[in-house]
């Protein structure tokens, strides 16, 4: 499934909204969107995941890349991940680097 990406600056965080699959084919476009941000100056990046059906290791590597470029005390928040995607993130131990929350109210 194709991936569409919307990128919006909010008052105190940046929001990336994803729709589709983040796999080997589409991860480069997410990487491009993230490298277009000033990651080193971001204190909080939220990624809306409720409409993401699939996340492979290629997508995980992009998320890890973003977190590594952000300041140490920054927050990378994934909003609305499916149970399957949350399971992959937990299995790989990457939940220590990103927060998984069900909704923006709980971010």
């Amino acid at each position, binding site marked *: 499934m194709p991936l569409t990406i919307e990128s919006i600056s909010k008052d105190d965080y940046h929001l990336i909204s994803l729709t589709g699959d983040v796999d*080997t084919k589409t991860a480069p476009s997410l990487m491009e969107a993230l490298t277009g941000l000033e990651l080193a100056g971001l204190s909080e990046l939220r990624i809306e995941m409720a409409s993401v059906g699939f996340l492979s290791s290629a997508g995980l590597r992009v998320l890890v890349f973003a977190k590594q470029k952000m300041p140490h005390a920054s927050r990378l928040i994934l909003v609305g991940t499916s149970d*399957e995607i949350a399971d*992959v993130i937990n*299995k*790989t131990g990457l939940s220590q680097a990103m927060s998984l929350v069900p909704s923006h109210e709980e971010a």
Partner: protein
Amino acid sequence: MAPEHPLEPIANCDGPASMESWDRFISFVESQADQQLGEGSANYRLRLAFEELLSNIIRYSGELDAGPSADSAADQAHVWIRSFRSPGSQPQFVLEIEDNGPYFDPGIDQPRQIESHLPIDERQIGGLGLFLVQQSVDHVDYAWIANRNRYHLFVNLPTPSDP
């Protein structure tokens, strides 16, 4: 566990080992997973394992990193995907992925560890894909047969005694 009975063929699909075939291969496996496993976590995990192997195959066949460099179709690596059902006391759905690209034994039979205890800044994230392959299916194997790389992904199917 590997199957104890001969495999019963279900369907197959093949094409060049290139990103041009990506959507067709993924659709084939999604369709097979939907038919044989139904919706749910096993379906998702099979696709995850398949996609990790497929991206490795295409990468090692040269195109993913270097662009389409093959001079002709005859020079291009090819991928064959076959699905099977394995009967027996523990029925299984089996996906066979074969390619004629360069020999590449990923050591998939050896348990893989990831550095999940390290802070994210110190993590090496190579090997994540093969770790996920192992974690996602009930059994995986690799063999080099007749100058082809051959993988099997096994997913246990429910048995009559399962709740």
